[in-house]
């Protein structure tokens, strides 16, 4: 039994009060899992192998490239960032096991950029980072549900939601393909259902909708998609799936001489990945794509320029593509969050910093970050472009026209957002 009389309670309270006062003025070593005087441990899960891995498996290398650059420049508040990476193969139960390892065995301070809607839902249900107080920073999924701060109190989105993407894409279709016969290929889970919600709310009607179960995307199954799409005489087809599904769809359609106007969802629209899967650049040519970040070939963009320079030195010979840019940008935003949390870095202070200052963080994104005490929403918009003859996504007429919206019934509007300039040397200030 613990016994404490009233005088002792009063004394203890006074000591605590003084301590609280001094804590705000005198930096002290934080006592937090995954944080030492010299190191901050972060962990991530994503498919490094398996059907869904192409393209996404470059993200850890990209993030490490930025963190190594940051560490070489002194780290954040004197601490260097270590990234632990676990391969979940895009299997939810694997994600649970690997996340458990990261939290319980590797003792990471926070999870960063875990990929996949089903995987993140499985982790939320089984590992329960919210209950453990473990930050889940910048999940690599656009499922709108993860912005629900009540259900996922420690989870922060970064990608625009799939609903937002579909709503904005719908506007683009209305403006450019009115009267055309529309087809849709989508992943038959919450990833796809979010997209369906967005298209439905925008009043888009498809002549044919082709769902595919996650993991089933192969050339053989894609032949079935093409049969349905061509039977419906779809003029414009939206591929709203992961990169491997996009590649399977485009490659198979080309082989079967089916050539509608393609519109690629951002998740599966990375050209390097699609081309690496054997799809000729010519097949991509003139397809429409979307992004919230600058074109990866736009070396006039200060973020793209610096990130590509860092990446070229860290991973020589590896193409600087959209997955790399998004990965490095996520690492950059994370570094700013850690910096903003101050010297007494804790899980709570990190999340408080995102909520207090996250909307002002510099980033490569051309649309705003929407973090606040009541919002865990990251970016909220897109620009549209077309793939060049070499397969690079570039803004139409060379100009980024940004649209933003929300995951509800809000309108799609043209954005006037001006992003913050990159801090000196791309290091958090």
């Amino acid at each position, binding site marked *: *039994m613990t016994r404490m009389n009233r005088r002792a309670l009063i004394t203890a309270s006074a000591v605590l009060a003084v301590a609280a006062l001094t804590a705000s003025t005198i930096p002290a070593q934080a006592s937090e899992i995954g944080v030492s005087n010299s190191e901050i441990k972060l962990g991530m899960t994503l498919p490094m192998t398996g059907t869904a891995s192409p393209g996404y498996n470059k993200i850890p290398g990209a993030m490490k490239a930025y963190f190594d650059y940051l560490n070489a420049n002194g780290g954040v508040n004197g601490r260097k960032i270590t990234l632990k990476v676990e391969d979940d193969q895009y299997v939810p139960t694997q994600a649970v096991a690997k996340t458990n390892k990261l939290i319980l065995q590797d003792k990471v301070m926070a999870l960063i950029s875990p990929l996949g809607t089903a995987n993140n839902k499985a982790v939320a249900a089984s590992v329960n980072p919210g209950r453990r107080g473990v930050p889940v920073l910048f999940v690599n999924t656009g499922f709108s549900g993860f912005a629900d701060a009540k259900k996922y109190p420690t989870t922060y989105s970064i990608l625009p939601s799939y609903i937002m993407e579909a709503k904005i894409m719908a506007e683009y279709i209305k403006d450019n393909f009115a009267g055309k016969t529309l087809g849709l290929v989508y992943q038959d*889970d919450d990833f796809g259902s979010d997209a369906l919600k967005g298209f439905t709310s925008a009043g888009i009607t498809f002549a044919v909708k082709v769902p595919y179960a996650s993991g089933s995307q192969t050339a053989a199954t894609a032949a079935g998609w093409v049969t349905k799409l061509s039977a419906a005489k779809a003029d414009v087809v939206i591929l709203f799936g992961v990169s491997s599904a996009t590649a399977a769809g485009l490659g198979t359609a080309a082989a079967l001489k089916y050539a509608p106007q393609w519109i690629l969802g951002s998740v599966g629209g990375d050209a390097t990945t699609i081309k690496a899967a054997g799809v000729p650049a010519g097949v991509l040519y003139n397809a429409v794509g979307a992004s919230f970040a600058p074109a990866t070939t736009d070396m006039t963009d200060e973020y793209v320029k610096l990130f590509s320079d860092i990446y070229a030195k860290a991973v020589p010979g590896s193409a600087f593509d959209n997955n790399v840019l998004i990965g490095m940008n996520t690492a950059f935003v994370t570094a700013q969050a850690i910096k903003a949390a101050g010297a007494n870095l804790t899980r709570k202070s990190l999340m408080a910093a995102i909520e207090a200052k996250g909307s002002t963080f510099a980033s490569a994104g051309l649309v705003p970050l929407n973090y606040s005490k009541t919002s865990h929403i990251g970016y909220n918009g897109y620009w549209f472009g077309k793939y060049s003859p070499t397969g690079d996504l570039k803004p139409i007429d060379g100009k980024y026209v940004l649209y933003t919206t929300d995951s509800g019934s809000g309108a799609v509007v043209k954005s006037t957002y001006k992003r913050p300039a990159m801090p000196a040397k791309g290091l958090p200030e």
Partner: protein
Amino acid sequence: MRISSTKSRFLAILSSTALVATVVIATPAHAAAVGPICDKKVPVQTCQGTTSDGAPYVMMVPANFNGTVALYSHGYRYNIDLPAGMLPSVPAGYKITNTPEPIPGGNPAIANYFLGNGMAIMGSGFSRQGWNLDVAVATNVELVGAFKTAFPTTKKVLAWGSSLGGIITQTLAEKYPTLVDAVAPMCMADNIAPELTAAGDVLWGIKTFFDPTIKGGNYSAGAAGNAEAIGDIVKVLTVLGSLKNSMSTGAWPATSSATGKALQAAGVPSRSALLLVGLMAGLPTQSDHFDSISGPDGALKLTFPLAVSPALATLENAASAAVLAILATQDVELQAGGAVYDNTKTDYSARVEDSSVIYNAALSGNTAIGAMLAALNPANPDAPRAKGNADAMAMMGKMAATTGKINVPTIMMTGVADPITPAGATQRVVDAYAAQLVAERDAAIAAAKKSREYKAPTKKLVVLWSMTPKAYTTFDATGSPITTTPAAPGTNHCTFTTANYLTVAKMMVSAGNTGKFPTGGAIATAARKSGNLSVDKYFRAPLLKYYN
């Protein structure tokens, strides 16, 4: 475990035969208590008798008895005889038995721990089998009294039990907190309504999709009811066998309902329907041999865990749980006077809202999920809901039940993927105790304001989660999963090692003596050394679906 020479003597003396005692005393129902009659042997004397309800018991008391006795309550035993050759698990058939079990499974190593350290053990066979919570608690109360009378130097009474015995133990501690000093409910069953809801959901789902001639409940009284229940067991096992054989093709059993056949025509694999049934009922998606994580090398490395393994795990778990589900339903219906399962208001879509995302691929995607849930909608005349008997359900509601209140130091141990007594039963107690602890702290603060002395409430609950290994499905050279190995830890029912039981026993003895648990990392260290046990306070098992 290192065994001293004295303890070795006990090991030599105690055979497992002695520990599952053959009761020679007549056991008339509702007679006066008999015994205990002791054989006076040294170093351990065995005493036998019956309580006033006719339940046989056995006590084993060492010559150097130190005043501590551990009362063990055994798990569920079927309340009807089963013919030979019907169940692979009991090829010779099953006869109702009330043989006392003073130690888990008659394990001599566990008995040796108690007896070799001067402690006594005892257990009743109970006067009736089947779901017997009410009578078993009364029997145990009487048995403790009988022991104290026979051995007046008794100072500490510990109680533990497995499965149904777990909830018997928890109920004993809730209702008679001064009777016991520490308890250990292991792989504890939940209250009867949640347990039979899970059982009913599995049976109703299998019936609705795969064989509409399965009764699934509302059995007749007497021999006719026994025949109906046995008939259901045969049918369910036949369906599961058929599903196993068509796991890769997705074909539906020939006995499938019109609804099932329509889903088959729509391209929904039978394995997805089976998985949906398991998720609706809350069956774990890990089983004896299927971790839903591993795949064979080659083309199926990813597809197997993503699309097939969860269904195979459900199949294995359903096979483990089906017989008990049917026989427990029949037994409680007999006690309550009618059908006790009612799913007329169950929203199965809500039941699987989260899990259908996680197992989306194995369920064949949202389109297939939507089709299956639509087929189970009450509006579908081919999927009639089961309506319970209101009086019987009310009667079931009056049966003994736990609230989760913790009165004495309590150690719980449960497998996280137990398909029969799900880990959620333990989680319910954890949740209740969390609320209790907050209330106790508030009360302590309020009392401190008056007395000027703060007396912090003592933590009285430790939970040992028996975790599944990180990955454990193994494959042969052809890539087929191997299912002949023992069940993985944390799976099947009460799959604990001797080391696990001894860890619980030692914690229970220590807590019984001191009234509290050690602080610091001692418990975590003991759990880790025991193997596959975790005290992770953040682990959370899903509650039984009844509570949704």
